[in-house]
C-alpha cells in the first residue's frame, strides 16, 4: 500500500524469547510472505463498479425508509394550506389525550410520537374501513432523526372495550356506525387507543389516509412512477404489474397497494410496496420543477377531502410541518419485526416477540431509541 513510504525498520523490535530462530529472521519471513501474496490482489476495476452499484442500491433502501417518514411529511405538507381550518372532528376520546407537545421555541423540545394509518374500504362501501397500514413514528427530543415501526395489520391485540381481535379491525370497530357513514376520526381514535394499550406509547398526532384519498392524490399529481422488484398480479382485477418501473394512475396505484394474497410475504411485502409508492409519490410532489406550486398543492388538498383525517391533538399543522421538515433532513431509521414463533396461536393472527417488543416500546416511551437501535442493529431495516 505504501510503496513510496519510508520504511520503518522493525528489525530491532518485536519479540524476544528463548529458543527458535532469530526474531529478525521471522520478521524477514513475514515481510517476504506479505510481498509474495500481493499477487492475490483482485482486479480493482470490476470491484469499483460493484461498489457503485451496491452504494446506489443502499442509498435507495435508505430512501425507502425515509419514505414512510416522507408519507408523514406529506401529510404535513398537505396540512399546511388547511391552517386555521379544523380537519376532522376533535378527538372523541379525551382520556387518552396526550399532554400538549411542548413546541415552545425557547425550552427543550419534547419527544413526539405519531400514528399514521392507511385505511381500506370507503367509497361508500358497506363493509366498513380497516386499517391496513399502522405506522408508529417517533421523533426524539433532539430531533436527530425519525424512527419508524410498522405494526402488522393481523397482529392480535386487545381492543379497548371490544375484546381480542386483529389490529386492523380496531379501526372498523371504532368507525362503524350502522346506517350512517363511517366515522373515520372515531376509527382512528380507537386504533390509537388500541396501540397505546399495546405499547404504552401515547401519540401526539394521528394521520389517516384512505385508499380513495390515495387514488385521488395520485391522479392529482398526474400519475406516479413505481418500480417493483417482481411481478404482481392483482387478485382483485387480474391486472398484472410487471417487474420494473411503470407509471400508475390512481386506480392502478390503489389496485397495486391492495394486493397481499399473491405476494410471497403477504402484508409485509405490501407494506414495502406501499413504501415504494409513497417514495415515488413524494418524489412527484417535491419535484423541484413543481415543488412549491400552490395550485398543485391546493388541487391535492381538494382531492383529499374527507379522505385525509388529521388529529393533531392541539398541535397546529404548521407546527407539525416545521417539526417534520427539520427531522426529514436526516435519514429515517426503519425498525422491522420478526414475528413471534408461536404466531398463529389464534387463527390468522400474528404476535410480536414479547421480549423484543417490550424493550422496543419501552425505548419509545423513554425516548431512548437511539440506544435501542445500537443494541439491536439487526432490527434496522433501513
Amino acid at each position, binding site marked *: 500500500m*505504501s510503496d513510496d513510504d519510508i520504511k*520503518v525498520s522493525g528489525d530491532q523490535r518485536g519479540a524476544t*524469547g528463548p529458543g527458535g530462530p532469530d526474531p529478525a529472521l521471522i520478521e524477514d519471513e513475514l515481510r517476504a*510472505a506479505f510481498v509474495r*501474496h500481493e499477487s*492475490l490482489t483482485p482486479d480493482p476495476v470490476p470491484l469499483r463498479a460493484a461498489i457503485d452499484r451496491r452504494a446506489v442500491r*443502499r442509498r435507495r433502501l435508505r430512501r425507502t425508509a425515509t419514505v414512510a417518514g416522507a408519507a408523514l411529511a406529506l401529510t404535513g405538507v398537505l396540512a399546511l394550506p388547511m391552517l386555521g381550518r379544523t380537519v376532522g372532528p376533535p378527538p372523541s376520546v379525551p382520556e387518552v389525550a396526550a399532554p400538549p407537545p411542548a413546541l415552545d421555541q425557547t425550552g427543550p423540545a419534547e419527544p413526539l410520537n405519531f400514528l399514521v394509518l392507511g385505511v381500506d374500504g370507503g367509497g361508500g362501501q358497506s363493509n366498513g374501513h380497516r386499517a391496513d397500514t399502522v405506522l408508529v413514528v417517533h421523533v426524539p427530543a433532539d430531533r436527530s432523526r425519525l424512527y419508524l415501526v410498522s405494526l402488522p395489520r393481523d397482529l392480535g391485540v386487545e381492543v379497548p372495550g371490544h375484546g381480542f381481535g386483529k389490529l386492523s379491525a380496531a379501526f372498523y370497530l371504532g368507525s362503524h356506525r350502522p346506517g350512517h357513514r363511517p366515522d373515520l376520526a372515531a376509527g382512528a381514535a380507537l386504533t390509537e387507543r388500541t396501540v397505546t394499550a399495546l405499547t404504552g406509547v401515547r401519540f401526539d398526532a394521528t394521520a389517516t389516509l384512505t385508499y380513495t384519498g390515495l387514488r385521488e392524490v395520485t391522479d392529482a399529481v398526474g400519475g406516479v412512477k413505481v418500480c417493483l422488484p417482481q411481478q404482481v398480479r392483482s387478485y382483485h382485477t387480474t391486472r398484472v404489474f410487471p417487474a420494473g418501473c411503470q407509471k400508475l394512475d390512481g386506480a392502478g396505484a390503489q389496485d397495486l397497494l391492495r394486493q397481499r394474497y399473491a405476494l410471497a410475504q403477504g402484508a409485509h411485502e405490501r407494506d414495502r410496496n406501499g413504501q415504494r409508492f409513497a417514495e415515488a409519490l413524494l418524489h412527484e410532489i417535491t419535484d423541484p420543477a413543481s415543488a412549491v406550486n400552490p395550485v398543485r398543492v391546493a388541487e391535492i388538498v381538494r382531492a383529499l377531502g374527507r379522505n385525509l383525517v388529521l388529529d393533531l391533538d392541539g398541535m397546529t399543522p404548521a407546527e407539525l410541518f416545521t417539526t417534520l421538515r427539520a427531522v426529514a433532513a436526516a435519514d429515517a431509521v426503519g425498525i422491522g419485526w420478526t414475528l413471534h414463533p408461536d404466531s398463529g396461536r389464534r387463527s390468522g393472527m400474528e404476535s410480536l416477540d414479547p421480549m423484543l417488543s417490550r424493550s422496543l416500546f419501552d425505548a419509545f416511551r423513554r425516548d431512548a431509541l437511539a440506544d435501542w437501535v445500537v443494541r439491536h442493529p439487526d432490527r434496522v431495516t433501513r
Partner: protein
Amino acid sequence: MTYEEFADSRLTALLRYAVMLTGDPHLAQDLVQETMVRVQLNWRRVTRADAPERYVRRMLTNQYLDWQRGSWVRRVLLRAEPDEAVVVRVDHAETTVERDQVWTWLARLPRRQRAALVLRYYEDLPDAEIAEVLGCAVGTVRSAISRALATLRAEFVEA
C-alpha cells in the same frame, strides 16, 4: 478530493491491504466492497477526517475485526448469489502460495494480532499509528505483535 479520485488512487492499495488481512482474495473483495460502499455513502464525513486515507484504513480494519461469526456466514451466503459480475483474477502464483507455510500460520492467528503484523511488516507503520488504526494503546500493539511472533516462532521450531 472527490470519492472518485480517492477510489482511483487508493482502491488497489486497500485491496492489497485487505488481502494481507484476510489471506483470501474473495474475502478481501467483500471487505473492501463493504467498506467502500460505506465510504461512498458517508463521503462528507470521510473528508472531514484529518487524513481520509488513514480514516478509511481504520474503517476497513474495524470492519475486519468486527466481522462476527454471524455476519461472516451471511457474507458467504451473499457470495453464493450469482450477483455482481466480479471475477477474481487468480494468478498462477496462488497455487504456489497456497503451500506457503508462513501464510498458513498467519491464518491461525487471532485477527487483531494478524492486523498488527500486517500494519507493521507490510504497511510499515510506526507503532503509534498502528495503535491508532486498531484503536488501542501502543503497549497493546507491542504485546500483540510479540505474542504473534512468539506463536510463529514456535511453528518454525516445529516445522
